[in-house]
């Protein structure tokens, strides 16, 4: 799709947890925990950047900063060349939406799918009256859900259906950027494939710009135009999936590649136990 204009960029992002804040930072002997260490990323419009790393590497912290849920220690987030403030207005908050890992805890258990989406559309003034129902039908179709789930509460939905509701909720406010934070890792393999296909289709049909965060290299590669590998708060390697995967430079990337499934291995496997 478009590919040249930068939609989202973060520059020299630093996030420190637990340390002192403010001018006396330099004087304190308690440094806190450096979760993100001078990370810069750029996502062109309509493209997907895959951010891969183990737990605690800082990838979710980056997502939270972009979504305005976490204050950075330093660094800026820019959307279409405009700096996003740390405290977001309702209009700014709309621009970046997140899909979370655990679809069972990310939805309000007391609201039906229809109520969840209606509330959202009304709050942001995106649809009123009969237009609401039309828009909700449209959203459900977009994420491949049947109209039958409309009056169902999350408890009665399967994991895959819940995650689709999560995606529909994020798309309802017409965001510029979608952040998927381990959005498919809690799902079963066969269901995960369907949700990945949905995201892939949305990316193509809507020209969605996406930050796809995952610990799974094979999943990330499938959906991403470029990949950044993160370890201990730093980006250790980045490039197109083909380059990063075929010729990983950093030891951590090599470990990730070695641990990911390959089709030819599966077909021709041996029984001699652990083969690394």
């Amino acid at each position: 799709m478009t590919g040249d204009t930068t939609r989202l960029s973060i520059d020299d992002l630093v996030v420190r947890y637990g340390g002192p804040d403010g001018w006396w930072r330099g004087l304190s002997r308690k440094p806190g925990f450096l979760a993100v260490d001078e990370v810069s990323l750029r996502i062109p419009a309509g493209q997907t950047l895959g951010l891969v790393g183990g737990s605690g590497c800082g990838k979710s912290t980056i997502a939270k900063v972009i979504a305005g849920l976490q204050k950075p220690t330093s660094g800026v987030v820019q959307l279409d060349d405009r700096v996003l403030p740390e405290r977001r207005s309702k209009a700014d908050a709309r621009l970046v939406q997140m899909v979370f890992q655990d679809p069972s805890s990310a939805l309000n258990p007391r609201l039906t799918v229809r109520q969840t989406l209606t509330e959202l559309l009304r709050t942001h003034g995106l649809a009123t009256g009969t237009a609401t129902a039309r828009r909700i039908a449209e959203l459900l179709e977009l994420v491949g859900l049947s109209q039958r789930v409309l009056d169902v509460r999350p408890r009665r939905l399967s994991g895959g259906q819940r995650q689709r509701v999560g995606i529909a909720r994020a798309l309802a406010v017409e965001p510029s950027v979608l952040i998927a934070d381990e959005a498919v890792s809690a799902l079963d393999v066969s269901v995960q494939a369907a949700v990945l296909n949905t995201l892939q289709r949305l990316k193509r049909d809507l020209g969605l710009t996406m930050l796809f965060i995952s610990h799974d290299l094979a999943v990330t590669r499938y959906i991403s135009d470029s990949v950044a590998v993160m370890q201990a708060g730093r980006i250790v390697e980045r490039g197109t999936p083909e380059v990063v995967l075929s010729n990983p430079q950093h030891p951590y990337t090599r470990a990730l590649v070695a641990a990911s499934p390959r089709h030819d291995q599966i077909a021709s496997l041996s029984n001699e136990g652990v083969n690394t």
Partner: protein
Amino acid sequence: MIEAEASTSSKAGVLRIANLVVQAGRGQDMTAPVTDVSLDVCRGEAFGIVGESGSGKSLTLRAVIDLLPEGLRRSGGSIAVRLDEGADWVSDVATLRGRGISMIFQEPMTALNPTMRVGDIVTVGARAHRGLSRTQAHDLAVELLAEVRLPDPEAQVRKWPHQLSGGQRQRVMIAMALATDPKLLLCDEPTTALDVEVQDQILQLLDRIRRDRHLAVIFVTHDLGVIRRLCERIAVMYAGQVVEQGTVRDVFAAPTHPYTAGLLASMPTLDSDPAHPLTAIPGGQPDPRERRGGCRFADRCEHDQPDCHTMTYALGPVRGHASLSACRRADELTGALS
């Protein structure tokens, strides 16, 4: 068949499960999360049970040591364990818990008692069952922590669980499982909560311990990669039933059940073409309450025929294959599945 059977008969059996049924609730609310599970595990063997959440794989494992969650009960079938060659089969499995059968859980954060030191955690079972003195227990703890390759075991004994990383905690849990000198080790998603690199180390550790101690190990996981690397034989579970059983080599290279084939095809791999959509299996696993007669996979299956929706479950041989399959069309389909 030839290969699988030959290896079964040449080795001594440790565990035998026949027609296991696990039920929940009573009367009108009664459901059966597990209905048709039969399998045999031999001495020193690594056996995998693979399935998606809700397939009954963890319940099957828990039934083996009579540790089903509250409200669930074993209502049919038999489970028998024989810990020593030539000994009698024991069907009262609860008596063997901590005396020959041990279990490793998924979540090392919550499975360790936070108010006990590592040394005590590791040997609490052994002290209860074998009546060890404090000094003996301490020596055993150091020995076991060394066996699971924790650096400086003498110092680790004094530590608290919160001072350890996730991988170290999982090593402590493995040491704890080994303290009662088991013959059968049950692992419920042993590496799911861990990072890739740590995952790898723990899998290698478990494999080495199995070989060194000639342990039978059952791995329950949804991760086909773990199964592929560690197991000799596997059972694939779907909606409470074993739908396919065979050696890892046979099942992965030439699946004989459409569900297994679908599972393998829906897994994104590093060398699959990202331009092609993944082959997802439409729909989801039926809830135990909403199961109808016939093949439980039929509603999601692209090869289903009217008879599939009325058939009765049977796990049987497939022409030209060594695996057992519950698919009634397996003979004619296998070419189309692999």
